[in-house]
């Protein structure tokens, strides 16, 4: 019977004296992920976390825990009394479930923290290995490239025997790296950029620019769904919805069409930076990818970036579209992102957008705009909603 799961976290252990803060954060996030399963108990145990199932469904627990940022791998564990017979029985049952009666190679790897146990690691490995060979016909030993490795840990409270390591999502626990503001459109890229910053431990506040009637209510509904999906990963995501219509019409009225998109992006960054100041966000995050569209050339990025000295993180900057799409599918945002509602923020398709706008040109083109008032007014009319993970929706978290 599998009654325990070992949860490993790699990078956190590198973090010196902050380590216990990280562990505490991870433990909180893990507990949240199984909050609706009260029988599951989690506790720290020598550089890793142990989950005692208490009768909960192993598959469900595995699925939930592998999706918590900071976890690098899981192993379901057979915990047995400290005798060679019991260790052998556990190893045999794991190997049987992995290979049934097909031919395969294995090795036994032993770690002994309980120095009271009469045999040392090598002796335990030899004893258990020998008995496994006797018990299972088609198995042979291969210590260099085994099909299966059975880990036996000899501890104070019993022997922990486990086979496969399930890879998990990795990264750092959400909440361990400060808060960032994600410029979230309804497209494919920005939710992925947000997910990647969650993965590195950031807390997320999304900022969306809504320009009814140029973008639709349904596009906003779509963004709210995306915020919910990110919240399912993060635990909580806040969404700021900026009323952007007036800014857009002012740009159309006062600025040359060829620089419309550049100036629109500059206004978005200014407004986001102002929200960041109010909300104490340490950086902005965008889904930009170099060269993907006209506003994402280096010249263009530089010209847009020039309006703030807040760091702008661009986790997708070197990614190809196909890889971004792959990740979006994996995160579960793709199907929502491709819904066909108007969300591209353009009233008309500009006839000839400048692909390499210079800073001075943009500044000149903005001369007719009352920038500070537009920003102030847009921020004043921004609304805030909070999304919390839907604990009980299994499908909300895809399998990694």
């Amino acid at each position, binding site marked *: 019977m599998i009654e325990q799961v070992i949860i490993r976290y790699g990078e956190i252990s590198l973090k010196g004296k902050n380590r216990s803060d990280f562990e505490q954060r991870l433990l909180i996030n893990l507990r949240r992920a199984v909050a609706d399963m009260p029988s599951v108990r989690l506790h720290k145990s020598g550089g890793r976390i142990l989950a005692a199932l208490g009768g909960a469904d192993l598959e469900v627990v595995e699925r939930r825990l592998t999706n918590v940022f900071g976890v690098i791998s899981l192993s379901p564990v057979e915990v047995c009394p400290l005798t060679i017979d019991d260790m052998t029985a556990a190893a045999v049952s794991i190997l049987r479930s992995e290979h049934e009666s097909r031919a395969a190679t294995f090795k036994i790897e032993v770690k002994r923290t309980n120095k009271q146990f009469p045999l040392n690691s090598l002796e335990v490995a030899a004893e258990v290995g020998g008995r496994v060979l006797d018990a299972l016909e088609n198995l042979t030993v291969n210590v260099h490239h085994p099909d299966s490795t059975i880990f036996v840990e000899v501890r104070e409270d019993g022997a922990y025997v486990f086979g496969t390591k399930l890879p998990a999502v990795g990264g750092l626990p959400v909440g361990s790296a400060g808060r960032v503001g994600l410029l979230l459109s309804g497209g494919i890229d920005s939710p992925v950029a947000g997910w990647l910053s969650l993965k590195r431990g950031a807390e997320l506040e999304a900022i969306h620019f809504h320009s*009814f*009637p*140029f973008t639709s209510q349904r596009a906003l509904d779509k963004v709210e769904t995306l915020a919910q999906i990110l919240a399912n990963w993060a635990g909580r995501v806040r969404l700021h919805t900026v009323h952007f219509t007036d800014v857009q019409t002012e740009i159309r009225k006062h600025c040359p069409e060829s620089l419309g998109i550049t100036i629109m992006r500059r206004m978005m960054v200014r407004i986001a930076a102002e929200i960041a100041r109010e909300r104490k966000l340490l950086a902005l995050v965008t889904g930009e990818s170099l060269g993907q569209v006209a506003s994402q050339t280096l010249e263009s990025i530089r010209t847009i970036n020039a309006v703030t000295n807040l760091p702008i993180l661009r986790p997708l900057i070197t990614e190809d579209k196909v890889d971004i799409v792959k990740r979006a599918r994996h995160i579960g945002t793709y199907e929502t992102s491709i819904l*066909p509602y*108007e969300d591209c923020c353009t*009233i*008309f398709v500009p006839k000839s957008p400048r692909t390499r706008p210079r800073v001075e040109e943009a500044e000149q083109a903005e001369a007719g705009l009352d920038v500070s008032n537009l920003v102030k007014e847009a921020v004043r009319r921004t609304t805030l909603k909070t999304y919390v993970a839907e604990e009980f929706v299994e499908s909300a978290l895809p399998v990694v």
Partner: protein
Amino acid sequence: MAVEVYLDNAATTPVLPAVKQALIEVLDIYGNPSSLHEQGAKAQRVLDQARTQMQRGLGLRTGKIIFTGGGTEANNTAIFGTVARHGRRGHHLVTTAIEHPSVLEAFRALERQGWSVSYVMPQSDGSVEASDILHAVTPETVLVSMMHVNNETGAVLPIEEVADGLSAFPKTLLHVDGIQGFGKVKTNLHSQNIHMYSVSGHKLGAPKGIGALYVRAGLDIHPLLYGGGQEFGLRSGTENIPGIHAFAVAAKLASDEQAEQEKRVFHLRTLLRDRLKHHPRCIVHEPRRVSPYILSVSFRLLKGEVLVHAMEMEGVYVSTGSACSTKGGRVAASHVLQAMHVSEEEITGTLRLSLARWTTEAEVLHAADVILKQVDWLYEVGGIHR
């Protein structure tokens, strides 16, 4: 909020107050018409009465009315039911390129099964010539399916001429998708060679989820659904008594006033069209014979979806060229306007305004003002001048 004007009645209509009342009353009649006891009998009486009322609404004394789960199901039943029953008569089918997806996609499915299908193209004004349809028919043609009124342009198709012409092909059956026609334009089925006619409740002030197919007396087709044999064996499943009753009430209200309203609404459409035509950038799609209930106009360079939301800001609800077609994650350009060879730029800026029997002159005039105002605002924001 300003006055609200709903001009998207070809997509769906609100439930009329009289229909709502009838619906509430009939909800107490909960019996299953197949039950032998009095509760069942009561429901059976509601059903019989509704069927008679529908029949009269369609101007018929004979033939079967089969209640379905909506217009799409009625169309599918007609097409697949005919092919299943009479498929041995030939291997050829005829329809038009401007049908609703519930017809067009049914034919595409049959094509994948090996049927040969002719899709008759419209004229540039959106109308379809009877002679073009009849030319496509051969002695091998099992079924001709055509719409009565096109849902995007309002074009009225020559169903009478096609029916007459088909007398030269006694083995070919004719199905008419009458979903935008019934209760709105003159519908005369008993005098013609029309074998099947589909109708839908929610285009006439009844709730969604109820439709009907008329099948001419003596014609036998196969069902899509098998089961308890309700609806003459053509649509098994316990009857949706509230929906059927509501549909019959709505159909009666529509057909009682059909002739006067057609005239009155024609006047409203002309009023609306002329106001909009006044705008130098407005293009009207005007089929030769047109339903007074649908007006299709285009404002070049504007985007349909943005137009819809700009009207919505002022409380006027309209639709883009076609209401419900998305393909592969992108809004697909209207297949109807494409078949008419309307330019891509013009298709993008197309609005469909659809009226109802209860639309008033004041509403139309207000809508025209709002449309012109918002269109001008969008052009101004876009730096395009009248």
